């Protein structure tokens, strides 16, 4: 565990109790007792906090790995097709609506989103795996083609999602789809936690396996291969890790952008800047960011709660602009 992990673990330890107390109904630490307070904590705020931590951790780790793989500090795991494909799966479940047997209704959305993420991962691995440069050909397009394959997948999934929206079977489904696409953590329960947490943990573990290979990419693809990195194995680990973390996040909370882009930048100054030093602290920092953002949204005095996905994009887009400016000045 490095310095950055300790810092963000400590921050998370402070944020968790604060987030449990914050909300429409403030809970003072003295109020702990039987009745509503305990119910609010155990069944509403605690699962919501755990879910925020899970999703933030997955997005943070995925962002750190993605930036390392693409050797680019402006990369975001959301760009590479998996999140849009997961969203497409979820939208399809809205579309099917009543066609799904009632016993399955509660699970259909996350499961179809996961299926979408899985399909996205498979397509990405197939396309990019074919084109990634390796010892057999050496003339492949490698990382550039991976990026383009991801963008292709993202725009295809986006177009199909838009099609599903315009052809929505009824206005109710339409508004549900649109609401859901802007991710949020409202009204989530332990069920979502049980879906997302194990998958995210597995995904972060897979990304951690790829960490040292990502370090080798610091000097470019050829140097990395000369140090024993196998491009296909790295690609497989990366697609699986990103697919599990991002797919699990979208399945339970909808699309939450920019966390993966922003978080590694917050972490980098505390590390030696190699991707392997970023993955675990980025998971912790991502957890802090999503938990803090979700808690702040709960207490903002608005008529309806601002959607988490929208709020993070409102913060994230200007941050992206600021990164671009810094990059222009050669300070990134």
């Amino acid at each position, binding site marked *: 565990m490095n310095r950055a992990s300790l810092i963000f673990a400590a921050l998370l330890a402070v944020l968790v109790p604060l987030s449990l107390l914050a909300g429409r109904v403030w809970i003072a630490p003295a109020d702990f007792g039987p009745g509503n307070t305990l119910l609010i904590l155990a069944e509403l705020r605690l699962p919501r906090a755990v879910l925020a931590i899970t999703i933030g951790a997955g997005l943070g780790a995925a962002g750190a790995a993605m930036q390392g793989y693409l050797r680019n500090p402006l990369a975001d795991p959301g760009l590479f097709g998996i999140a849009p494909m997961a969203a497409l799966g979820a939208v399809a479940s809205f579309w099917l609506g009543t066609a799904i047997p009632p016993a399955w209704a509660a699970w259909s959305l996350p499961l179809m989103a996961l299926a979408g993420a899985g399909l996205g991962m498979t397509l990405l691995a197939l396309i990019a795996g074919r084109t990634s440069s390796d*010892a057999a050909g050496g*003339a492949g397009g490698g990382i550039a083609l991976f990026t383009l394959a991801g963008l292709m997948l993202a725009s295809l999934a986006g177009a199909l999602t838009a099609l599903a929206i315009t052809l929505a079977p009824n206005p109710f489904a339409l508004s549900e789809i649109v609401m859901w696409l802007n991710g949020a953590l409202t009204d989530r329960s332990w069920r979502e936690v049980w879906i997302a947490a194990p998958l995210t943990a597995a995904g972060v573990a897979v990304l951690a396996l790829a960490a040292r290979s990502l370090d*080798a990419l610091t*000097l470019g693809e*050829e140097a990395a291969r000369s*140090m*024993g990195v196998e491009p296909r194995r790295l690609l497989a680990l990366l697609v699986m890790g990103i697919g599990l973390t991002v797919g699990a996040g979208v399945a339970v909370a909808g699309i939450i952008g920019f966390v993966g882009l922003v978080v590694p930048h917050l972490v980098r100054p505390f590390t*030696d800047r190699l991707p392997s030093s970023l993955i675990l602290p980025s998971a912790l920092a991502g957890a802090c960011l999503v938990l803090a953002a979700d808690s702040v949204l709960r207490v903002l005095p608005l008529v309806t709660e601002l959607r988490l996905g929208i709020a993070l994009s409102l913060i994230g887009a200007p941050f992206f602009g600021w990164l671009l400016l810094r990059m222009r000045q050669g300070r990134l």
Partner: protein
Amino acid sequence: MLAADNLVLARGARAVVSGLSAVLQPGTITAIVGPNGAGKSSLLLGLAGLLAPASGNVSLDGDSLARLHPRVRAQGIGYLPQAPDIAWDVAVEALVALGRLPWRDRGTAAIAAALSALDLEPLRHRPVSQLSGGERARVLLARVLAGEPRWILADEPLAALDLAHQLSLTAHLKACAQAGQGVVVVLHDLGLAMNHADRVLVMKDGRLIADGLPHIALAPQVIAQGWGVRARWLGEPESQALIAAEEPEQAERNRG
């Protein structure tokens, strides 16, 4: 021993090295030279096991590279690409430590030895963005040395360096060869090859047109054949300079 046996390398459908054989000896500096597009860098990639042969074979001490596990190959052969951009602004020591990746260990002693061999100890904590071109070239070579490879394959390691830094990096490479490592460098500057290599391979159109001691492999008639220029060597051994002029007929063709 690093040996290419009837090696054919292709980039896409185009053959860039066509049937080349050479047995390279450790403890020496071998320079690969040739005009642009002769296949020098491709040959180096092939020797490093990073470009799989279309046919033929490259072997390290008798083992075919194609059959070695990538990590075992990486432990034996260090490869220094031409002026790579460094994606992250890491400190010198962290960058050099990447050289231990094939071994999956901390390799503290090897890293310290590599830093010291290239006089980088005072810079160990400096971010790579704040290095001069010469310092950067030393750091990149130190990364290779930290892996303690038996072979060091470097693609134009001296290209972007000024005269003094060229000589200092050459001295470091010579020290590696004296310590028993095999050093293979692609060079553009024939003077450097003439003065510092133990053996020179001259390539043209994917084939060897000369192979041997520098003064033989870089004789004026070879230079005329390879580059189409009239040239002669001036000066003392180990500090010779090439004086070149276009061959009259070649000049005619170039202007044609």
